[in-house]
């Protein structure tokens, strides 16, 4: 799984950090998303999908690897 974030769409809600703190963080100054792990381990995939679904700004995508599809 590859994670992509759009910092221009991000509204700093922090929902992604609540869902997957190992993968996402927020910039100290304005709370905008920072990616901690671009290709997180499979064990975190459900948390990342939860972050994608909950993001109120539609600012997170994942590209699933072929073997997962």
């Amino acid at each position: 799984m590859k994670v992509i974030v759009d910092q221009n769409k991000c509204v700093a809600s922090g929902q992604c950090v609540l869902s997957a703190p190992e993968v996402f963080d927020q910039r100290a100054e304005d709370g905008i998303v920072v990616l901690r792990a671009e290709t997180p381990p499979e064990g975190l995939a459900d948390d990342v999908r939860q972050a994608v679904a909950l993001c109120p700004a539609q600012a997170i995508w994942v590209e699933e690897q072929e073997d997962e599809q």
Partner: protein
Amino acid sequence: MKRIVIVGASAAGLTAAETLRRRGWDGRLTLIGEESRPPYDRPPLSKQILTGAWGPERATLRSLPDLARLRADLRLGQRAVALDVPGRRVRLGGGESIGFDALVIATGVAPRRLPDSDLAGVHVLRSLDDAIALRAALRAGPRVVVVGAGFLGTEVAAAARAMGLDVTVAEPEPVPVRRPFGDRIGALVAALHRDHGTRLRCGVPVRRLRGAGGRVTGVEFGDGTTLPADIVVLALGARPATVWLEGSGLRLGDGVGCDANCQAAPGIYAAGDVASWPNAHFGTRMRLEHRMNATEQAMAAAGNLLGDVTPFAPVPYFWTDQYDTRIQAYGIFPPDAEMRIVHGDPSDSHFAAAYGHHGRVVGVLGWNAPRQVRTLRRLVVDRAPWTTFAAIPALSPATVN
């Protein structure tokens, strides 16, 4: 169960459809939307779309391939006009009747208006078409009066002011956003607007719109004074879109009355702005017009439709962006709550506040403090005792970071 119908194709309806598929529903799925546009996101309408920072297409929620992957019978531009609960059918405006085994109601809300709202130059802002029309009107450089200083009204005012326009916000309450946040935050929002050159006319109700030749010319206040305007934006709140459900037998009070699992009747669920339900976390019935709730409640309702028995008991999250300020909130903010500044200082435009009610922390608010408010959220989730803050008057930044 063979067919699930979802009425409403905005954030909640779309999320319900996606959740059903993700959870393995492989049967027929029909998504009915009144607007002909594919599902789009509403928070940018009063912000980036209005200022022109984004083109309208950027508010689109899903690409056409993503929508196709839903394998849903997508009925856009079609309005549901009646629901037959015992017969398990939804009737559409064109006369067609669609049967269902389970139903999700996600029809949202419709903006309130004033008499004479049909005058040219009078706008509401709910749909993307509304935003495009208002954007076009604002580009002509009008004098703008915004009626209503809730989140929508104050965001529209900020966007219009950012375009360099002459803007006044009219609000019967003494300060903006008083109902959600109380007087103290309201006074700070008022100061924020004044600092940016937006005028506020608070404490006096609007009596009526004035017009000439079919076009709005101004706003008349309860004290007899008038304010000239080329454009009037009505931001008076919204009513749940339940007219189509009248006579269905569903409980309609403030929206569609649901149980704790978002169920309105056997096999019939509601989600998003239109749904009211008892939130067990706070022990109170609520109906939320928040973007985040549309997603969370649709996920919960879809899960319960498929057999979960999970009460929907979230800590609500909402936010507003005005000028360069972002206000974010978790929880509820009852009018009789106590409030304390628990981080930072309002004079620095960076702080967080906590709200206490019946001895518990029920809400936290961040003013340009996204990380702090996210951390403080835990106190609302844990129903922390309000004495947490009595013993420690103010948390240090190091503590909440």
